[in-house]
């Protein structure tokens, strides 16, 4: 295909040269060129290899509908699958073709084309079945994935995107003739209007074709300039250019992506795309139409393109891809291409129309006759032939004779479709137009208006009345625009979906989906095999499942299917159009919600101290908690945890418990409310005392636990687990509002207002005395499970005597701002007593030695308090509390429920592991009856061996018996089932 440059226009200036590289070769284009137009200018025909058969492919269209010309932009983080027909070039751009090896010209994969008779629909499903399941994952899939596909995923992702929200009355999508006219009516009205166009220049068909000769007696170009100026000057209209609406959601919610670097290289660190989230009162769709192609043998050869695309290259880019293209059409839409060619001093090599001479528009007839263009009416192209480019075509004329025509370019037009993608995303319904042979919008489901060719108005005669009628719900100016056209006004089409090949051959291919290499033969085969529903057929053949979503071909497939099934197209229906309209990158969707902003990190007030003192953190919900502290870089986690645990048992340890949820409950009826929310009874509890409490779901399962401090009957402070804080508060609020609105009670989260330090160990009392000299910490004055308010250096603090380690312990609650100072003070006075910080892992070990559960680790939403052996915590005399009735359900009183027990290896040197199954027999004979599993497991420095907590069937009655713990990796280990307490069973240390 030899292209020539035409005249300069407002979009392309021939003195602004730009160099770029395609597959390593340097080429020149002009400012304003897309990759496709620049490549055509350089007479390059071959731009890619097809998905499955690796067939040579060229540029088929001039817009977003492009199925073939997908390229990888090396100079932009290696962005794959970029449409060459919309991406603008810039100086130094580097582009690579896709899906070829070792080179585009000599592609090894093209051997697939030879074997193509076996690669029919469902080939992979049928072929790669055996001999073993593993073959698919380890052999077939990697091989197929290497051979098939599009671009390579980029390794690096640096594109930044911003999100912008809009709230407007009217959004006009598409800035072509109808979009501009709609916007014109809204000029200086009281509506907030957003006008969105995908291209850099508004104008659509005015820029892309020679269809219109005069608008309001002005040159279209001049009218356009004036109109855009008027719209830009109007204060109520905002224009978004280079912005593609990809998604149309419920309640007129639109998503659009704006390219911020059109025609220039994105600057690293700068925002290169903006995602617009638009909520609009009305949406006016003026997004135009898309031309269809036609199926015949080798309709994928480089050098074949859509006729309107050819015209767009001429009008928009000052470029004729070929000096003498052949035109093949079944409709009147390609008339203007003939007009444009002749106007540019070129001549079609032949004009082939499937319509009869009477149907062809008289003015086209005249034009063709006057210029001696060979005309074939009632004729069809049987096939195109050539090596890696089109060289000749075979035409069957009205007499049935075959004519061979040599050519380097073929322009196709199979009719036009309204671009209904967004309309159907909005849940609007389509209807088949038997005359225009296309689906057109019929019933909108939302406040959606369609104008122009997007609504199926392919003629311009009702332009004014249509817009005025559809916009009459708005108080806007009436339009009266006069249009004059260069070509015919009436759209006319004859049914033609496919031309069968001249010779029957296994290798003859008529494509129906260029991007996914689906042939019309595949469609026939799928229907023969019973996939005759359009949604099934689509998935079985992968028709219209590429990144182009079959924009130029999906309606053709429906036509072929309806003929094969002898059904009306409306009965066949269409597949669902789903967002996005065109691919948008994940980085655009993610926006700024990535890396450190993906999920907020919550840090305790002591976080900086932890950082300085060797803390290794673990994530607990959004919180960063010290997992363990390394005294030097070589200390392993195991050693650190053992050291920390031992130190708590022998001296004293301090844990930053600030992340524990804290909820303050106040109000006249606070006591009654607490009695209803938790299992425990708080009525007889003394003021100033605390209690370990359980919260259940209505199904009777343990949901959360914590310590409740009773300040008075009207005032409680509850702690929750770190991860459960929000849920517990939410649950309290829900029941206070929905079930017991008569109770006067209020609750509020005070988690972040207070830091919490847990100090425990035999030497704790000494440390506390020294740190807070004015407080009496004696057992009589400050007994276990009581709390006191004090002031320390002017800071109000609350001290609770409680422990999660089994040692004597205190929890100190301090306003967050004053916490670091007091923490430092405790560290320095504690030094002489061997006080050391410990992390969550040591805390878990220590509590497990005491058999204290962790909700979410030892419970999993299927464990009741009775299963845990915590029946004593249930206020049986209470009439009601959350989940009470469920504790006597038939399921919760079953005897073989999983219950909490302790596990120790029978041979003390054996190891156990979390998640191991507990089974009864040493010999494994499947199916093995499973009793339950280990929920927590540690090596205890105090006991000198492994120990574990487990939930096993009927566990309580199995205490004292033997069983086995098993994993496939570790084999079976003999274990003893014991009480879930391994240390200080009498709680002597706790209350000392």
């Amino acid at each position, binding site marked *: 295909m030899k292209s020539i440059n035409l005249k300069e226009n407002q979009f392309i200036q021939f003195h602004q040269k730009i160099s770029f590289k395609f597959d390593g070769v340097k080429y020149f284009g002009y400012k304003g060129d897309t990759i496709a137009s620049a490549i055509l200018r350089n007479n390059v025909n071959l731009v890619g290899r097809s998905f499955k058969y690796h067939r040579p492919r060229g540029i088929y269209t001039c817009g977003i509908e492009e199925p073939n010309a997908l390229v990888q932009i090396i100079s932009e983080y290696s962005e794959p699958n970029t449409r060459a027909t919309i991406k603008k070039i810039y100086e130094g751009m580097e582009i690579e073709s896709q899906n070829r090896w070792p080179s585009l010209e000599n592609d090894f994969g093209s051997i697939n084309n030879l074997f193509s008779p076996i690669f029919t629909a469902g080939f992979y499903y049928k072929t790669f079945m055996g001999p073993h399941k593993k073959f698919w994952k380890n052999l077939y899939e990697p091989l197929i994935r290497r051979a098939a596909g599009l671009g390579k995923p980029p390794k690096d992702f640096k594109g930044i995107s911003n999100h912008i929200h809009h709230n407007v009355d009217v959004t006009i999508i598409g800035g072509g003739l109808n979009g501009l006219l709609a916007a014109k009516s809204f000029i200086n009205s009281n509506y907030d209007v957003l006008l969105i166009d995908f291209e850099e220049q508004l104008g659509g068909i005015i820029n892309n074709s020679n269809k219109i000769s005069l608008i309001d007696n002005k040159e279209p170009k001049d009218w356009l300039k004036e109109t855009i100026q008027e719209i830009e000057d109007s204060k109520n209209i905002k224009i978004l250019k280079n912005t593609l609406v990809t998604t149309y*959601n*419920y309640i007129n919610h639109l998503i659009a992506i704006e390219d911020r670097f059109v025609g220039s290289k994105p600057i690293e660190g700068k925002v290169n795309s903006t995602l617009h989230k638009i*909520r609009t009162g009305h949406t006016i769709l003026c997004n135009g139409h898309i031309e269809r192609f036609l199926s015949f043998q080798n309709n994928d050869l480089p050098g074949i393109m859509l006729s309107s695309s050819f015209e767009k290259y001429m009008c928009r880019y000052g470029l004729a891809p070929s000096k003498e293209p052949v035109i093949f059409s079944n409709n009147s839409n390609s008339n203007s291409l003939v007009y444009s060619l002749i106007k540019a001093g070129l001549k079609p090599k032949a004009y082939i129309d499937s319509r009869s001479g009477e149907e062809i528009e008289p003015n086209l007839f005249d034009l063709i006759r006057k210029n001696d263009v060979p005309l074939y009416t009632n004729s069809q192209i049987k096939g195109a032939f050539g090596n890696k480019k089109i060289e000749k075509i075979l035409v069957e004329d009205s007499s049935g004779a075959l004519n061979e025509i040599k050519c380097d370019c073929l322009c196709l037009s199979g009719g036009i479709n309204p671009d209904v993608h967004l309309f159907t995303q909005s849940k609007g*319904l389509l*209807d088949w137009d038997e005359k225009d042979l296309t689906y057109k919008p*019929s019933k909108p489901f939302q406040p959606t208006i369609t104008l122009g060719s997007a609504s199926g108005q392919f003629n311009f005669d009702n332009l004014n009345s249509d817009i005025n009628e559809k916009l009459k719900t708005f108080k806007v100016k009436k339009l009266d625009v006069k249009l004059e056209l260069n070509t015919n006004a009436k759209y006319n089409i004859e049914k033609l979906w496919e031309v069968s090949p001249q010779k029957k051959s296994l290798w003859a291919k008529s494509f129906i989906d260029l991007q996914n290499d689906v042939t019309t033969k595949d469609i026939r085969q799928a229907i023969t095999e019973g996939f005759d529903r359009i949604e099934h057929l689509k998935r079985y053949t992968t028709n219209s499942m590429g990144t182009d979503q079959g924009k130029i071909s999906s309606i053709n497939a429906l036509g072929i299917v309806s003929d094969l099934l002898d059904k009306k197209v409306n009965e066949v*229906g269409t597949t669902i159009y789903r967002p996005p309209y065109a691919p948008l990158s994940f980085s655009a969707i993610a926006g700024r919600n990535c890396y450190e902003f993906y999920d907020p990190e919550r840090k305790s007030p002591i976080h900086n101290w932890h950082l300085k003192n060797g803390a290794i953190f673990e994530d607990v919900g959004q919180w960063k908690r010290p997992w363990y502290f390394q005294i030097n870089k070589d200390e392993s986690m195991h050693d650190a945890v053992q050291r920390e645990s031992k130190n708590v048992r022998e001296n004293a340890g301090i844990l930053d418990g600030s992340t524990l949820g804290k909820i303050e409950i106040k109000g006249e009826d606070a006591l009654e409310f607490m009695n209803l929310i938790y299992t425990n009874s708080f009525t007889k509890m003394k003021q100033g005392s605390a209690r370990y409490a359980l919260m259940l779901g209505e199904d009777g399962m343990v949901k959360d636990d914590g310590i409740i401090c009773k300040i008075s009957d009207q005032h409680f402070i509850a702690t929750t687990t770190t991860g459960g804080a929000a849920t517990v508060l939410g649950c309290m609020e829900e029941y206070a509002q929905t079930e017991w609105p008569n109770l006067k009670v209020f609750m509020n989260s005070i988690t972040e207002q207070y830091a919490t330090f847990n100090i425990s160990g035999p030497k704790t009392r000494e440390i506390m005395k020294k740190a807070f000299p004015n407080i009496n910490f004696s057992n009589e004055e400050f007994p276990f499970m009581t709390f006191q308010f004090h002031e320390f250096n002017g800071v109000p603090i609350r001290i609770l005597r409680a422990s999660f380690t089994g040692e004597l312990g205190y929890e100190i609650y301090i306003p967050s701002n004053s916490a670091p100072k007091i923490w430092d003070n405790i560290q320095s006075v504690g030094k002489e007593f061997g006080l050391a910080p410990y992390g969550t892992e040591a805390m878990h070990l220590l509590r497990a030695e005491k058999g204290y559960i962790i909700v979410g680790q030892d419970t999993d939403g299927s464990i009741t308090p009775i299963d845990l052996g915590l029946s004593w915590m249930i206020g049986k005399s209470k*009439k009601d509390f959350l989940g009470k*009735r*469920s504790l006597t359900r038939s399921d919760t009183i079953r005897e073989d429920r999983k219950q909490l027990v302790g596990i120790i290896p029978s041979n003390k040197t054996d190891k156990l592991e979390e998640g191991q199954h507990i089974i009864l027999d040493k010999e494994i004979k499947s199916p093995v009856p499973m009793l339950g599993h280990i929920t927590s497991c540690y090596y205890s420095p105090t006991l000198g061996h492994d120990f574990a907590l487990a939930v096993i069937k009927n566990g309580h009655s199995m205490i004292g018996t033997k069983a086995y713990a098993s994993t496939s990796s570790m084999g079976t280990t003999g274990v003893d089932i014991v009480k879930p307490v391994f240390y200080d069973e009498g709680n002597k240390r706790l209350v000392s």
Partner: protein
Amino acid sequence: MLIINCPYCGPRDQSEFSNGGEAHVKRPDGSKEIGDREWGEYVFIRANPKGLFYERWVHTHGCRKWFNCVRDTSTDEILVTYKLDEKKPNLNNFKSVVKTPSGEPEVGSGNFTVEK
């Protein structure tokens, strides 16, 4: 994304709210004897109709108030929102029982693009 009209704050984006399942499910009075079946139905059984549905929502990232609404589950249209202490609206007040984009059948997803 839906817009939900919080009875306390006004229309807000769906992302501010959380769904609370079927509305007007009464919690049995715990002070009285409750049969296994009655309690089981309260805890586990909820309606899941295609069409109009009384539903609870909470304005989690807003006023944190619970409220009720009538939503058409086949179209996601929220027909009315009302406070917890307001009477539940009669479903007959709303025009259609199953109004779907394409007048689809009463069961099934019925994602059609062409009128059936």
